[in-house]
């Protein structure tokens, strides 16, 4: 029994190896898989991600004047100018489907790496699958800290995780306190999937460590028909800083309900997600003026990162909206991956993994506020320094860290 399985496994490996060799021989195309929700409640995320990747492909596959890795020549130089192609698959926010699609991309589409997956739950199974097949998984936008704590060899996360993000928020509040602001209590308000609960877990810990009272700790059911009772509880607790972790639907509902109940929180420091999504800002942006969110990106990044403006313009032409927290991370993940494949000089996944592990891109060669891109032993980019951005009704401006700020923070948020 055992021997037969080993033989079968070896057989599959030979078939795969053959496919890669074949792809190499053609030398024309490098195929990368992208796994996103393309139907269901988060379908728009997948559709936007597609535009972000296409924007990145335009830079990678054409001669581009931008100062980004792989931009200078058409295609990947060390693979004889091979063009990169992204194959998209739909995981419908289901971990099992994500895993099955990852296997399909690896065994049928012969992708040499996978990018994804937005939902942390899906990234969990996809990263495990990639590990088993020895194919690099570049996690663009799932921020659950547990993902990089599993000791996977083929897992790489270019952006920050929730712990880094939340740390920045508390650093920011500490800095404000040092400048004489009075901040005594925080209010946690988070949705009940892995994103919200993980985010709250870290914030609870940090609040205790740094001496902030937790005025309310409210976990709510996502996609609820109403949030009135929840908002009523926040209103009663009246924390100095409200720290919400919500997806788009709940962000819209939360902002509306707060306005309806005549509640204006003194300050909001949000865990991005819904709070930086265009549909939410279109709907309730006027109710959120002064709201601060953690971010990987902001539109005023153009001041510090010359390429950001051009990339944003190119994305906007495709998607009809500006780059945001999600799409900027997706764009950057693909750029980092393409650079690694180029340096590997092959589409053999093991070599790409090595190249990824050796990545060292200075921050000014990205469109992000990151200090650099360099992965630690867990595949986490520890230099993915987050920023805090403030919504001033028309756009977001960077307010923290103070060294990179483009505007002075308005605190309390209602002026």
């Amino acid at each position, binding site marked *: 029994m055992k021997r037969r*399985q080993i033989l*079968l496994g070896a057989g599959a490996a030979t078939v795969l190896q053959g496919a890669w060799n074949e792809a190499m021989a053609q030398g024309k195309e490098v195929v990368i898989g992208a796994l996103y929700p393309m139907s269901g409640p988060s379908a728009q995320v997948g559709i936007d991600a597609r535009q972000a990747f296409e924007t990145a492909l335009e830079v990678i596959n054409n001669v581009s004047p931008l100062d980004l890795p792989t931009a200078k020549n058409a295609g990947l130089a060390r693979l004889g100018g091979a063009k990169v192609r992204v194959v998209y698959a*739909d995981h419908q926010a289901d971990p099992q489907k994500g895993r*099955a699609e990852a296997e399909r991309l690896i065994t049928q589409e012969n992708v040499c790496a996978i990018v994804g997956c937005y939902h942390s739950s899906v990234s*969990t199974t996809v990263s*495990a699958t990639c590990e088993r097949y020895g194919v690099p998984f570049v996690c663009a936008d799932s921020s659950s800290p547990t993902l990089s704590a599993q000791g996977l060899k083929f897992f790489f996360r270019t952006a920050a995780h929730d712990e880094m993000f939340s740390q920045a928020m508390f650093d920011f509040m500490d800095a404000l306190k040092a400048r004489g602001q009075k901040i005594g209590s925080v209010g946690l308000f988070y949705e009940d999937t*892995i994103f919200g609960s993980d985010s709250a877990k870290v914030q609870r810990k940090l609040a205790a460590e740094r001496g902030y009272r937790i005025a309310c700790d409210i976990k709510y059911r996502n996609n609820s028909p109403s949030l009135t009772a929840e908002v009523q509880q926040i209103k009663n607790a009246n924390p100095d800083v409200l720290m919400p972790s919500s997806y788009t639907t709940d962000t819209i509902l939360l902002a509306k309900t707060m306005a309806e109940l005549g509640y204006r929180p003194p300050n909001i420091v949000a865990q991005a997600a819904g709070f930086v999504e265009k549909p939410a800002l279109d709907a309730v942006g006027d109710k959120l003026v002064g709201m601060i969110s953690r971010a990987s990106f902001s539109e005023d990044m153009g001041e510090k990162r010359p390429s950001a403006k051009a990339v944003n313009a190119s994305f906007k032409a495709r998607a009809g909206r500006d780059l945001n927290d999600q799409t900027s991370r997706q764009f950057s993940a693909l750029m980092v991956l393409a650079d690694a494949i180029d340096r590997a000089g092959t589409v053999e996944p093991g070599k790409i993994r090595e190249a990824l592990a050796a990545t060292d891109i200075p921050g000014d060669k990205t469109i992000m506020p990151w200090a650099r891109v360099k992965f630690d032993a867990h595949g986490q980019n520890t230099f993915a320094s987050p920023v805090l951005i403030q919504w001033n009704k028309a756009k977001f401006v960077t307010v923290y860290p103070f060294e990179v700020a483009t505007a002075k923070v308005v605190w309390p948020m209602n002026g």
Partner: protein
Amino acid sequence: MSTMPIVSNFGASPAPSGGPPTQAASDAVRGFGDRRRRQLVIALAIFVLAALSPLFVQNAYLRNVIVLTLMYAALAQAWNILGGYCGQISLGHALYFGVGAYATSKAYVGFGLLPWFGMLGGGLLAAALAVLVGYGCFRLKGHYFSIATIVIAEMGLLIAHNWEWLGAASGIQWPFGADSWATLQFARDKTPYIHFALGLLALTWFICWLIEDSRWGYWWRAVKDNADAAESLGVTVLSSKLAAAAISAFLTAVGGGFYAAFVSYVDPDSVLHFRFSLLIVLPVVLGGIGTLWGPMLGAAILIPLTEFSRSYMGGSGSGLDLMIYGALVMAVALLKPEGLVRLLPAWPWRRKAVAP
């Protein structure tokens, strides 16, 4: 006594009443025995073919589709015991599925117990739950019963979402391990999963085969066909219905435990969601409720269709795959209400109709 059930035709048409046993009836008895034997032979042939499928299908993705198809066929057949033969339309089987998945994961990851024990424990737990639910809800009629099952399953989902001991929203992730039948972990190889799911399917199928010719089967069909019979049998039938619920829940939970081992990860939305309750019932409805072959046929058509439409059309995000899927479900439900099993040639798949 023994001639009574033979004339009933899937509970579809009322049984002809009265009349002395005739020559036709005793011929039918002989034909009945032959048919039962033939069913076994055909099932065996199908199962052997499925067991050998990894020899013909090398591709991991397609093998994955085979695993899912076999698993849903087994789950659908398990649901059929309660919903089809017994007529209790449960729309909350996700609860039993989730109980099995969580029990197996918690036992393995939390306590180091092999998944086999977890499945057994989860199965027994689910069976106990099903008896409890059945005891409370079997007297509810029609939709009141179905909605009660939905509500109870939704309560399970809410509890799992908020129970830290079970990982709450983060779920439970299985650690990496060497390929082994003991832990049911196989990194790349899908063949063992195909064989496990097939074993479960064969077991549920065989139980249904036994039920069709058992006293329970006769009672339930009689209750379905004849309201007066239901009155007089009502009391006697309750215990057999509870047993059916327990068996159905047990098998569903074993399926859940298998799914957890197969995916190596559980979280509330991926095993306890209402969507699962529908996914379990759908193959039965498409294939044919209360039939021996319907659930298998339904799963064999529906699951590959779902998978392929997502894989090859879902990537566009246009919603076209949903439209096609929805339209097909609707069309089959309306055009072949008895299920697709009716498309198969009468012999040997279906019960022979006896001329009155």
